[in-house]
Every structure is written in structure tokens, then in C-alpha cells.
């Protein structure tokens, strides 16, 4: 099926530092998403993004979070500053939109905040 890539696969940083998670979505997809999964819990929606704008965000999407996709490059999730509770696996997804609802997920980035 369609492939979504995520870089890096693992990231370890100190609390208070900035981190950027990168996502390479499926090439013709128009909608982009970030989900957060804490170990042992279900995946939770963070934010979706279309046409250069955030369309919807959850209460988990704190003020320290931001997303962008400059000039069709990587779709990024930036956390500045990081907190201990940001430790989780972050999954990027993309979809074509319209009548094509299917979201395709990347392999995730495991973020550890020390």
C-alpha cells in the first residue's frame, strides 16, 4: 500500500530542548495528521493539516506544539520546549481527502524526553 515515511525512528532529548519530527507523506495526498501513542494506551489524535493550515487540533496539541509543511517538503511536528509527558510514539498519517477517507500511517517516531 501507500507508504508514509518518518524520520528519525528514535529521538532522545533532554527536557526543555526543541525537537522536530519529520514526515514524508504519500506523494499525492492532501491531508496530513499527527497522532500520539503512549506505551500501552490507544493512539490519540493530535492535529490535522490541509492547504497549509491546521484544520482541527485536540486538547493534547499544546501551545508548545506546531506543525508545518513548507513548500511541499516534510510535514513536521515541532515541540518547543519539550516536557517529560511528551515521551511517546508519534505517528504521522496522510490521506487524499474528498471521498477517499483512508488514512495511511508511517512507522512512528519514538520520542524519549529525559
Amino acid at each position, binding site marked *: 500500500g501507500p507508504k*508514509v515515511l518518518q524520520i528519525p525512528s528514535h529521538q532522545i532529548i533532554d527536557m526543555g530542548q526543541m525537537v522536530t519530527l519529520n514526515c514524508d507523506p504519500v506523494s499525492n495526498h492532501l491531508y496530513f495528521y499527527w497522532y500520539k501513542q503512549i506505551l500501552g494506551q490507544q*493512539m490519540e*489524535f493530535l492535529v490535522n493539516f490541509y492547504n497549509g493550515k491546521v484544520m482541527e487540533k485536540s486538547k493534547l496539541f499544546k501551545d508548545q506544539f506546531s506543525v508545518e509543511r513548507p513548500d511541499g517538503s516534510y510535514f513536521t511536528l515541532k515541540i518547543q520546549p519539550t516536557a517529560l509527558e511528551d515521551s511517546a510514539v508519534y505517528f504521522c498519517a496522510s*490521506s487524499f481527502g474528498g471521498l477517499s477517507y483512508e488514512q495511511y*500511517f508511517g*512507522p512512528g517516531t519514538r520520542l524519549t524526553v529525559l
Partner: protein
Amino acid sequence: QQQVRQSPQSLTVWEGETAILNCSYENSAFDYFPWYQQFPGEGPALLISILSVSDKKEDGRFTIFFNKREKKLSLHIADSQPGDSATYFCAASAKDSGYNKLTFGKGTVLLVSP
């Protein structure tokens, strides 16, 4: 309040048996239900999905049965194979969000014994 619930938490079946994974939901606005399969260290992969206008969807060995009145659905995996051993997530989405936000259950860990 968990909006999407899955049971059992884990399930073991013998090779060749039919595995039945259950899902229920709270929000009557949900009308699109994808199931995802996730192997350790990988992202969730879309397996099969159903819209609430249907009560059954088949794709090879995988079948979704949907009961809108009871807000329940189930995934049946016929002729289970050891390679089907994975975590299965039921998810839900609503038309009023443009199907752009998935709410996930906590997953069922399936083990198929040879």
C-alpha cells in the same frame, strides 16, 4: 470516557480457527470504521473498513459485521494464520469532521498458534 472500546484485550486462537474481535462506540455521529493491523515496531496498516450504511464488508479472510442500533461491530478473521498475529485497532470517524479525525480503541492483541 473512552469513545471506542475493544474486547477482548488479548485473544489466542489456533491456526485455521476464526478469530472474532469486538468493538463498540459511544458517539452516534461515527459512521466510518476502519480496522488497522499493527506489527511490533511498525505503524498501523489499514486492513478493512466499513461505512455505517452497510452491515457487512468482506475482503478475503477478513469480514466486518456492523450493528448500528447496538453501536457494535466485529472483525472476523477466518482461517487464522500465524502471520495474522498482531495488534488490531478499531477506529471511528464522523462525516461532520470530514472523516479527518480518527478515534481509536486500545486494541486487541491476537496470537495465532500453529
